[in-house]
């Protein structure tokens, strides 16, 4: 899956929360209008990831409360309901090939503030 941004889309960076609001190595849920986004902070490797909050398995708004971790170095989150795991890099389901993938979002941190990038059609 390509994350390259073509010329007619722009990214809107919206302010989600402050770094200290997010527990190290955990996640929180961010409200962006009617959209729920799960934001994860990997403090040990100083990396941030964001995906849709809804788990595609049973459509539960739960991934932000899931447990983070890695599999062969690839960052992932496990849904608290039935422990399906998803890659935080490209959103694909790691434990079940037939499961739908997650939408992922870019994350930027500046001055202890966390921003999530939303694609906008120009």
């Amino acid at each position, binding site marked *: 899956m390509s994350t390259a941004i073509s010329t007619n889309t722009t990214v809107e960076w919206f302010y*989600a*929360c402050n770094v200290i*609001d*997010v*527990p*190290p*190595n*955990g996640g*929180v*849920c*961010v*409200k962006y209008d*009617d959209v*729920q986004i799960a*934001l994860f902070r*990997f403090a*040990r*490797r100083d990396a941030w990831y964001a995906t849709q909050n809804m788990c595609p398995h*049973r*459509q*539960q*708004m*739960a991934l932000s*409360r*899931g*447990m*983070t*971790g*890695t*599999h*062969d*170095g690839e*960052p*992932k989150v*496990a849904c*608290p*309901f039935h*422990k399906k*795991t998803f890659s935080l890099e490209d959103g694909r389901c790691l434990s079940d090939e037939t499961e739908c993938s997650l939408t992922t979002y870019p994350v930027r941190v500046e001055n202890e503030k966390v921003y999530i990038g939303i694609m906008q059609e120009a």
Partner: protein
Amino acid sequence: MKIVIIGNGMVSYKFCEKIISKLSAQAAEIVVFGEEPRPAYDRVHLSEFFAGKTADDLLMAPADWYASNHITLHLGDPVQQIDRNTKTVHSYKGITEAYDYLVIATGSSAFVPPIPGVDKKGVFIYRTIEDLELMRDYAPKAKRGVVIGGGLLGLEAAKALLDLGISDTHVIEFAPRLMPRQIDESGSRILEQQLKQLGLQVHTNKNTSEVIGEDTITGLQFADESILEADMLVISAGIKPRDELAKLSGLETGHRGGIVVNEYLQTTDPEIYAIGECALYHGMIYGLVAPGYEMAEVVATHIAGEAQQKTFTGFDMSTKLKLIGVDVASFGDPFVPAETSRSIVFEDTMKGVYKRISITNDGKYLLGGILIGDADAYNMLLQTSKNKVILPPNPEDVLLGARGGSQEAGPGVLGLPDDAIICSCESVSKGAICTAVEAGNETLDAVKKCTKAGTCCGGCTPMVKDLITGTMKAQGKYIRNVICEHFAYSRQELYDLIRIKDVRSFDEALDHYGHGDGCEVCKPVVASIMASLWNDMILDKGNDVVQDSNDRFLANIQKGGTYSVVPRIPGGEITPAKLLVIAQVALKYNLYTKITGGQRIDLFGAHLSDLPDIWEELIAAGFESGHAYGKALRTVKSCVGSTWCRFGLHDSVSFAIQIEERYRGLRAPHKIKSAVSGCIRECAEAQSKDFGIIATEKGWNLYVGGNGGSKPQHAILLAADLDSETCIRYIDRFLMFYIKTADPLTRTATWLNKLDGGITYLRNVLVNDSLGIAEELEKEMQALVDKYKCEWKEVVDNPELRKRFNHFVNAPGAKDPTVKFDTMREQKKAAEWK
């Protein structure tokens, strides 16, 4: 050479498999006719069709297996005639095939006794997938189900009716007892008792004279004039070999059915063989799959002209009933006459266990036996009798030693001779399995693939597993279960490391002993070990994010993403005033209320952000966390006991409260449940708990390692007639020893089953202090007890922790707008998920 096979059942399939491994595709042309619409499937596990398996799951091999092995398969096309002069067969669809060798593997059909009315609607037999499909479609209409026949298959059919949702199911047996061919009088009595508990009504000595009803069954009429109303009937009165084709072509058949064969399985026409359930050898039909497979092997070697010719010389008819929920097994010769043998009987009517073995008069060899209620030792005993293994000096040990998974009695599976057959379906010997393990096949799957052991009925898998570990140990290999890719240690090793290094956070553990970032497997394990060791507040030191989701929010996540709240109600005792508080909180926060199986009250449907407020109110009224969300002590149930009950010997409620308050909040590898009963009537069901206590005239009996849930198991008596203080000391030792040594997510029952030496060893450690650690265990437990604090109180009092209980980080207090409820019986319920 051209081989034609009539029938495509289990034995026919096995014959195909064997013959192609012995002959090259060029050497033989193989044609199979099957009457059923699908290729051979696993009839032995037919009942699993009702447990969710599909017809495809049950196939012995996919349809394209035959083509890819150059076998021509005609399905839905029964052979109607054999012409022995021209050596051809003619099928229903008009195909004519010539043969050099003909193999008849037509199996058998259900025997339906000539009772008037068996042709009515609602009457079924139990043999093919089609039969089961018909039953499945009919069952929703039926209220009461009846099975005629109390044998092996009848009981399996009765269980199927229960599984189909017909809770009122009856079994009718003509003989004075159940399974008359396999087990004795006393065994039948116990079995009947156990079946009753499953909800099956058993009627013995009943001769059905008519199926009544217009064109649909409404009941059964018996010879003794009585009537049983019923709207569904399954007939399982025995089998009838399918010998009609053989008879028609002039082959000799028995007068009670079956195609007569010699030791090469040849019929009276030496070019025609008969194998499986249609074959009659020495006046006997072998109605099990393993002898059928043996017959297939004999014929395959015969046709292939192998140098070492095999013969069929009869077969052990040992059986174990699967699926029914009560273990039943018989092995060897279960009915050896008293003159030529001694028998040893173990009977526990309360637990519903009956075991009888027959041994030779000199006490050296095991001849056969019957096991009801607990057949764990079946495989071992079967092999001991089959292989003529010399018994230990006290032969009763082979019966009694099997309790609690103890391996001490007898040498176990490793003591069997190399040629002992471990997997009788596939005839795999102990030697073959050990050789495979030595060659590097060190997992069950690898051994299965390499030797085929355990691929058919699966009954031998426990022995195969024991052989794998035994062989690896003998090679000096160290076997351990490492936690995951981030920690190359077993839980027990990690527990010791974390204790010695005084590790207090997951990050520290990872820095010292792990690598990478951790994952959903190792995080909760480490969190649980630290909680068991230190009993620190579990949300401190960044440990909140390594707790399982329920522990992280100190509540159980439910459908829809809301939580349930369970305050502790020790021993199930609660004042009316406290009940009122629960009711008020439930009304205020709109919560669904339900009494749990553990004698407390569960409040469902709480929004994440409401949890701290709800607990603030509950704590103010004197409640504390019930730890329903944790792998921790749950409840200590109690019966009403001597304060009110006229049978009560001691005050079970007070003791239960004392115990629950002692171990509340105790984190362990898995949840822990307990109960206290005031007398042997056992109203609190203490024997189904991780540890259970029953009052006796002289004190308390302490049982350990019981389990309810999906794999029920009775707890085993650890020590009897204890005073309260000793009882608690033993529980301290038991729990601490379990916490220190169990694998992650292992309940005490499984832990005890796997413990080398079983209950005998455990009793030695805990009661006789054989390792000299009893005092240390008690001390460690006391330290945990002293450190107990209510987690919810700490959250309620801490504004920083309270902040974590919000759905949106950027909209505190706002509830998740996607949460939806429906209404049912005047309360809310979670909206159904997709």
